[in-house]
């Protein structure tokens, strides 16, 4: 009976549709009605990851913003505490997400999805083992794509640590790498990754196309003391050297060209006077790198012990080779995250988040020309609560 009804409905619909189309034949020509596509990813585009809004944490947003016009270009929306990465050729965006069959509960499915970067539409997905690391804020050590674009490495935390290796070319899970309690996926070669260990040492793992570890070497001794001066998880990469910064404003360079990685001599971000004034790094993403210039950027605030997540009010710029500060950019608004583009006319982006009882305007992205330090404007009304910025 229902089927009959539907058939009737279809027939009537078709008839009425034609009638309606005729009735509207005198309609003005259609406007440019369509779904937009994007041009190629440009150097100043930024990807803002909002892992959780103020209301909900089951719908991660990856917001794509043109850093020149400060306009929204589009977004991806995923699942619980999602993360994202852009392929080196800029043609694809990868996300790793977790979905529950009933929103906040039910059966768990972890998925790596490949999106076409022009259409922002999913082109394929791979189900991965349901154990990926979920952390707020997300950062670039949670997932990495090999330089040839073939393997995507996703960090797991159960809370045991490992890495799921996804074979992108064949759209399947290739294997799993045990990181022996060390955390993070920081790539330092075509098939080599670095992971940070709880004692302050670095673990260097070589892996193959089957997603298996084929070698692992650990630093002979820690390059920092996690109990006296812990470093932030993600370093600034300048060439083959990883510059880690610490809660107490030290720089710990690590040479990743050797196997295992080798520690270089730490040096301070601040003078004794500045240290006394309480200057130290802080925020959700307090470090940016400009590899072509050998510079790194640190979000600084004044505060006491354990203020490593306090929003920064200035960005201090360091020449890594000369081990000295070369610039200071005062931010119009305190920021939680910074990001520097890698092109010849680089931008510094600083993201401001509302604080309880504070700013009513929502998250705001500030833009600066790094060479002059000039403030170029800001974009407000950013959706959600973006806690991580990345770019091409």
């Amino acid at each position, binding site marked *: 009976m229902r089927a009959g009804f539907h058939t009737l409905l279809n027939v009537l619909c078709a008839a009425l549709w034609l009638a309606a189309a005729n009735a509207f034949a005198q309609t003005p020509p259609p*406007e*440019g009605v*369509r779904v937009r596509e994007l041009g190629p990813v440009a150097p100043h585009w930024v990807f803002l990851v909002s892992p959780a809004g103020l209301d909900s944490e089951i719908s991660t*947003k990856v917001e794509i913003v043109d850093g020149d016009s400060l306009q*929204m270009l589009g977004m991806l929306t995923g699942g619980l505490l999602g993360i994202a990465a852009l392929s080196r050729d800029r043609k694809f965006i990868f996300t790793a997400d977790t979905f529950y069959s009933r929103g906040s509960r039910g059966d768990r499915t972890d998925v790596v999805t490949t999106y076409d970067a022009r259409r922002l539409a999913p082109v394929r997905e791979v189900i991965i083992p349901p154990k990926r690391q979920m952390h707020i804020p997300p950062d670039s050590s949670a997932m990495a794509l090999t330089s040839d674009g073939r393997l995507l490495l996703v960090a797991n935390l159960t809370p045991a640590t490992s890495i799921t290796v996804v074979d992108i070319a064949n759209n399947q899970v290739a294997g799993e790498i045990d990181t022996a309690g060390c955390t993070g996926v920081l790539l330092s070669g075509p098939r080599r990754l670095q992971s940070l260990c709880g004692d302050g040492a670095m673990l260097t793992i070589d892996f193959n196309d089957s997603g298996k570890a084929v070698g692992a070497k650990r630093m002979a001794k820690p390059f920092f003391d996690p109990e006296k001066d812990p470093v932030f998880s993600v370093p600034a990469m300048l060439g083959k050297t990883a510059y880690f910064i610490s809660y107490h404003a030290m720089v710990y360079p690590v040479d990743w060209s050797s196997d295992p990685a080798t520690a270089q001599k730490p040096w301070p971000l601040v003078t004794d006077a500045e240290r006394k004034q309480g200057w130290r790094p802080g925020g959700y993403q307090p470090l940016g790198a400009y590899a072509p210039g050998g510079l790194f950027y640190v979000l600084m605030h004044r505060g006491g012990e354990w203020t490593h997540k306090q929003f920064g009010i200035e960005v201090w710029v360091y020449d890594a080779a000369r081990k000295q500060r070369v610039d200071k950019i005062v931010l119009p608004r305190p920021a939680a995250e910074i990001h520097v583009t890698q092109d010849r006319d680089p931008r510094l982006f600083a993201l401001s988040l509302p604080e309880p009882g504070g700013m009513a305007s929502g998250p705001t992205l500030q833009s600066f020309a790094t060479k002059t330090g000039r403030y170029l404007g800001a974009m407000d*009304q950013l*959706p*959600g609560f973006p806690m991580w910025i990345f770019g091409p």
Partner: protein
Amino acid sequence: MDALVERVTRQVAMRTSRRGMLALIGRVILGAIALPLLPVERVAARAHAAEPAPGEGDPLSCDYWRYCGFDGSLCGCCGGSTTECPPGTLMSPTSWVGTCRNPVDGKEYIIGYRDCCGKDNCGRCFCQNNKGDLPLYRTQLDNGVTWCYGTSSFVVNCTTAVKLALKS
């Protein structure tokens, strides 16, 4: 309420009182009117977005004339435009409709408010005007309905405002 929309819905209503079944078909059709204009998924060449004529006002402002019956986030703030959906969303072939007066030519136009579906709420430039908005018993005029019929998801990212016809 405006004459064309009224006329169409009145016809529907008249049929309704005699044959209830036709009412819902009428509603489906009202929504489907725009379908032949919108082979969105199949557009190969890039079309030009409708740019406002001088004097029409700012399409990123909730005061823009086409938004007289709007409810949602303006797609122009979300990677689309007044008539374009942001990349990766699905433009619904169905919509609620309103009748708004263009300040340039002084004429009234039937506007279709087409939701862009399949991605979560953009949230930017939220705008609610309610001219012509009726409750659910006049489905086609209800701006609270999630108008994603004809797409594969009822999650709305933002909403467009497409000229469907000159009011006659």
